[in-house]
């Protein structure tokens, strides 16, 4: 258990907290390129380097495409290599993201999620990370600054254990630029927790020269993809195990999703990321007035815990899924996955509603969440996507 006497409490923004986690994790290489609202991570880290607090080689690349490319080169060479990005940056490097997962490189990219152009908007939304959700990266969402810090530490251990890249995600501005009270672990505790990267194959193993990034034709390509799928399935078990270990050093418990007053709930909201905090306040308030409401906050979005979520939601009569992303001409992404979870876990057809909120940094207030619960209570549920504008 954590040593309660030596709690190291700080007031940090999400961006600074992630940089602080990186300082403690001690990557060998970090590629840095600015984009709002991620920049606070890399500039904080660069200052740490300037002040002699970190040893990592910083590569000041000329684009996000090169940020991930350099990270790939470094990781393939046996280094613990990381980077950070947002929005257009993630889409600019998108070409290289399936290369990372295809090569099985344990790269971690910290993300402050943000809307996509056009029109230009620098504020929080999940449109960027949803656009790259099927590229073989593990995606983990943070609700608050403490999660953003903890997720970073968990992410590097997870990536290196399963041999797949991990994207810890916080909501741009709402988490990345908000100062919160968080507990920082001791440097030595983090160092021991993450350990050293165990390299299987590397470009710097000259005795066993390896070819990374082959050309696979019709006869072999399919099997490569099936192997990646096996790794993603392994990620769930590994995440559970690592979260268990993390609990021992921190006293903070993480799971693939958080259940908040689900047991006896009749109306439940499913959500991801920062707005989960607002929704919890609403649940608390409504519970005080006797309403049986609850919340499920998804933490691990890829791989998606279909069976596990289906099992806990299948008894809930009314469910609203809140997506902070729009999927033009289709149901939004989290909603689609919740439908799949329910379809395969129960023969019951629950009352299910889809809401899109918070695009381009639009505030989602308690009254918006209250409105969703009220819709559920009133039976205002149909197959149309509703927008909390």
């Amino acid at each position, binding site marked *: 258990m954590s040593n309660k006497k030596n709690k190291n409490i700080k007031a940090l923004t999400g961006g600074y907290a992630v940089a602080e986690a990186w300082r403690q994790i001690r990557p*060998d*290489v970090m*590629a840095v390129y600015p984009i709002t609202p991620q920049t606070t991570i890399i500039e904080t880290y660069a200052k740490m380097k300037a002040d002699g607090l970190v*040893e*990592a*080689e910083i*590569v*000041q*690349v*000329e*684009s996000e*495409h*090169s940020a991930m*490319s*350099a*990270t*790939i*080169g*470094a*990781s*393939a*060479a*046996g*280094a613990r*290599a990381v980077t950070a990005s947002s929005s257009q940056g993630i889409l600019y490097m998108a*070409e*290289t993201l399936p*290369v990372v997962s295809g090569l099985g490189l344990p790269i971690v990219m910290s993300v402050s999620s943000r809307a996509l152009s056009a029109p230009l908007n620098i504020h929080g939304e999940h449109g960027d990370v949803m656009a790259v959700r099927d590229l073989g990266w593990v995606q983990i969402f943070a609700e608050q600054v403490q999660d953003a810090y903890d997720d970073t530490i968990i992410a590097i251990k997870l990536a290196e254990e399963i041999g797949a890249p991990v994207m810890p995600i916080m909501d741009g501005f709402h988490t990345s630029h908000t100062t919160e009270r968080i507990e920082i672990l001791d440097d030595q505790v983090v160092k021991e927790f993450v350990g050293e990267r165990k390299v299987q194959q*590397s*470009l*710097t*193993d*000259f005795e066993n*020269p*390896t*070819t*990374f*990034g*082959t*050309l*696979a*034709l019709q006869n*072999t390509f399919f099997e490569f993809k099936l192997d990646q799928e096996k790794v993603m399935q392994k990620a769930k078990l590994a995440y559970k195990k690592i979260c268990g270990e993390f609990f021992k050093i921190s006293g903070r418990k993480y799971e693939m999703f958080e259940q908040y007053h689900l047991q006896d709930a009749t109306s439940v909201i499913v959500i991801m990321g920062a707005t989960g905090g607002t929704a919890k306040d609403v649940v608390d308030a409504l519970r005080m007035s006797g309403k049986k409401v609850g919340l499920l906050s998804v933490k691990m979005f890829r791989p998606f815990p279909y069976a596990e979520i289906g099992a806990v939601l299948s008894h809930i009569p009314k469910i609203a899924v809140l997506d902070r992303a729009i999927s033009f001409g289709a149901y939004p992404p989290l909603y689609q996955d919740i439908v799949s979870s329910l379809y395969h876990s129960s023969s019951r057809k629950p009352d299910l509603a889809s809401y899109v909120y918070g695009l381009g940094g639009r505030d989602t207030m308690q009254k918006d969440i209250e409105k969703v619960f009220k819709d559920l209570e009133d039976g205002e549920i149909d197959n149309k996507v509703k927008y909390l504008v």
Partner: protein
Amino acid sequence: MNKDLTKKFSSGHATCAGCGIPAIVRTVLGATDEQVIVSNATGCLEVTTTIYPSTSWKVPYIHSVFGNAAATAAGIDAAQKALEKSGKLKNPAKIIAFGGDGGTYDIGLQALSGALERGHDFLYVCYDNEGYMNTGGQRSGATPYGANTETAPVGSQSFGKTQQRKDLMEIVKAHGIKYLAQANVAYLPDLKRKAQKALNTPGPSFLLVLQPCTQIWKFPTSEYVAIGKLATETNFWPLFEIEDGKYIINNIVKEPKPIEEFLKTQGRFKHLFKEKNLEVIKEIQKTVNENFEKLAKRAQIS
């Protein structure tokens, strides 16, 4: 095959008959006895040497995407520095990036520029076959004026590419790197000497190597050396190097052959010999002369 030649890059690869790329790769890799790591852009070299489960590479090799050979090399450089500092790597390798002209002049130019500007310790080798040959012969920023390509084809209203090639040597030079050279697969001893120099230069270095493509330039597979030689003998492709900003022309051709001697060997220029296109040949000759004069001046001044 000669065991020395296949020490780092094996026989049995799938490049076309009459392709000079393997000779370029072997010459460059053979220019050092130190360990090397290769970063390769998508292209002819990559697809013909890494067909799973085989590989032609007996040295560590990575291919990522089309435009990022230099950025990948930059990451390897950073990793080697970090691993050396932490005692995990004793002898860092020489890092060599290979890309075609598409991967260098065009889609990879930004990544190359960034890596040169940051001063990474690596050699970038562009094998320049003057177009997107792996995808069947489309025009690139390296395709010469008047050439027939799939995306700038000859037709009743077109004589092929209407723009001049990009001067990549000057672009690279503008980064202030210590050593860069223009070479030609038809002159392997010259290429080897330049590769040795480049690999012994701390920081970034660059080689631009002409690679006549039998398939898309359209000439018999036995002719790539002869055509490469004509490119230099006509001053279309002078051999030169820039060392610490100083230009050195390596083979001053006393009596340069007319450009027709080079053009007439290749199907991609066949249309230029029609009456209506003879002006284009004149234009090409004029540009060759002007470019060489510019180079000669630079060589004298510096």
